[in-house]
């Protein structure tokens, strides 16, 4: 089975993240980049599927040059090779154009199964899996907490508010995973050393047949109009319980639309 895992480099959530004043995009240079956490679960699932069924795991990353660090981590976990889609023209892409560029790259790579985390910690749109499936004309099996492959049949358990749905399809398909699915392995030292020698293919937009006018900041359908720093946390209000503490707490929660 030919599995492609989409892995994104995101700014470390433990650090303070900033937007660039010039073009209002995320300042990806200012902070350490890490593997988007959910994507580690996607890599783990791909590796387990490969261990069970054979085949090959390819990592696909769209991101600036710096994202190679993230690719190396996925390779250190055990992926076989990687494709790095990187081009200045892609900077500023929104979800729609990102899915277009990624789909073009996936068509070029070829796949039986595409696996990705269900959202990234930087953008949190959670739409890439659905958009990719649509663009690739493949079934989408999203929010999987369990994946089973049997020949060309694939079945997942999709988490819902009330439990889970069982969703079945045939390969090729696109699957997004949630953190309940597995426990990602630590990259082993041997894996880390071996990752240095694994092939990473660099793709520019022309190599992936991506139309420059359909990607990047200028082509984005959504626009960051303005932004401001989050206000410092205001001092809390202290409410004295005069027998009506419960009512006051409920009123407060209702005023914030929590209940």
């Amino acid at each position, binding site marked *: 089975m030919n599995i492609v895992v989409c892995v994104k480099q995101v700014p470390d959530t433990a650090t303070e993240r900033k937007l660039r004043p010039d073009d209002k995009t995320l300042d990806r240079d200012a902070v350490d980049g890490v593997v988007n956490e959910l994507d580690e679960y996607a890599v783990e699932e791909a590796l387990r599927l490969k261990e069970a069924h054979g085949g090959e795991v390819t990592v696909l990353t769209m991101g600036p040059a710096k994202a190679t*660090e993230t690719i*190396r*981590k996925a390779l*250190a976990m055990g992926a076989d090779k990687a494709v790095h889609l990187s081009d200045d023209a892609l900077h500023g892409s929104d979800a729609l154009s990102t899915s277009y560029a990624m789909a073009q790259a996936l068509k070029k790579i070829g796949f039986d199964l595409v696996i990705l985390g269900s959202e990234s910690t930087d953008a949190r749109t959670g739409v890439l899996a659905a958009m990719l499936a649509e663009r690739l004309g493949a079934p989408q099996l999203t929010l999987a907490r369990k994946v089973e492959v049997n020949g060309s049949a694939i079945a997942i358990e999709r988490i819902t508010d009330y439990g889970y749905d069982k969703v079945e399809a045939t390969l090729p398909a696109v699957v997004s995973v949630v953190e309940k699915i597995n426990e990602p392995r*630590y*990259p*082993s*030292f*041997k*894996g*880390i*050393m071996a*990752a*240095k020698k694994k092939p990473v293919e660099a793709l520019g937009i022309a190599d992936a047949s991506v139309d420059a006018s359909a990607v990047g900041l200028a082509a984005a359908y959504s626009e960051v109009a303005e932004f401001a720093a989050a206000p410092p946390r205001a001092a809390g209000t202290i409410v004295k319980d005069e027998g009506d503490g419960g009512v006051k707490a409920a009123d407060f929660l209702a005023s914030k639309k929590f209940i």
Partner: protein
Amino acid sequence: MDDLLRLDDQLTPEQRMIRDAVRSFVADRVLPDVADWFEEAVFPARELAPQLGALGVLGMHLDGYGCAGLDAVSYGVACRELEAGDSGLRSFVSVQGSLAMFPIWKYGSEEQKQEWLPRMAAGEAIGCFGLTEPDQGSDPAGMRTIAKQDPSGDWILNGAKMWITNGSVADVAIVWAQTDDGIRGFVVPTDTPGFSAPEIHKKMSLRASVTSSLYFDDVRLPASAVLPGVTGLKGPLSCLSEARFGILWGVLGAGHACLESAVDYAKTRLQFGKPIGAFQLTQEKLAWMAVALEQAGLTALHLGKLKDAGTLKPHQISFGKLANVRAALDIARQARSVLGANGITLEYPVIRHMNNLESVLTYEGTQEVHLLTLGKVLTGLDAFR
């Protein structure tokens, strides 16, 4: 907490990945439980060994036989991250890799290597290293443990070792003993009749680590049990050099954990209407701690580069072990004072590290032994005896 000199920027991407892998392992598998292990004086060696093996830390600086073959700086960084968890964890790894696997790897026969190294790298077999004896510590040359060859060629081992890390949980002991030709090393399976290894209790330091006595009562070993590649004290001393290199990095982790804990505490603990970190006396403590930690980090990085270049000298390892353990212990003690009463509980890592570092100060050459080593290099005069 800010890393003032950003020394880790000097690391290669692979070295950073090794750091991150060990750091997350320690955060997930060690930090949640280590205070309990310390309180209960247990170390779950059998449980952790295969996990550490899968990660690749056991014998990480050796190559072949299932070992990862890392450079010296990577080895150091891994030790640092392990010891940020607990010195007991790092001790387990140092003993396994540098004191038990290293002599087999360096001085062992091909059969000894094949038999032990792959299983030890995987954490399926645990090793210990017996040099120190009840009456011979800093001066191991006078050891009393003795091995004699009988007419069949078998070795008969008699004597006792003390303060042996991993002793009671080990599958194999590397035992140094006097022979007619001088000091030799023996690969002793711990299920050999006549071998026993009772655990030492009532320790107030390295409680999350197994420390034992070893007794050899007519332990009969085949002729092939001796390490063929070395005779004399240089055998065990070369192992100690490997392990000390791990220690001079490892203690940076303990020091970092203490400083981080002190900085966090100083920012949140209010007295006299403000955070104690806003008082100049506290800031002075924190600043000196950070300076000492970064200087120790520079020493470690420099020595790591020398080791990778193949030019590191034993007295330079003494320098690093002496200076960095001293720095970490001072940091731990200062951090303890910043935490006030909370500094004496296992709710915070500080007193655990502080007590552990008292062992680290003593084992692998006491502070005094390393001072005498440097004194000898400086003056050309031997003050050991």
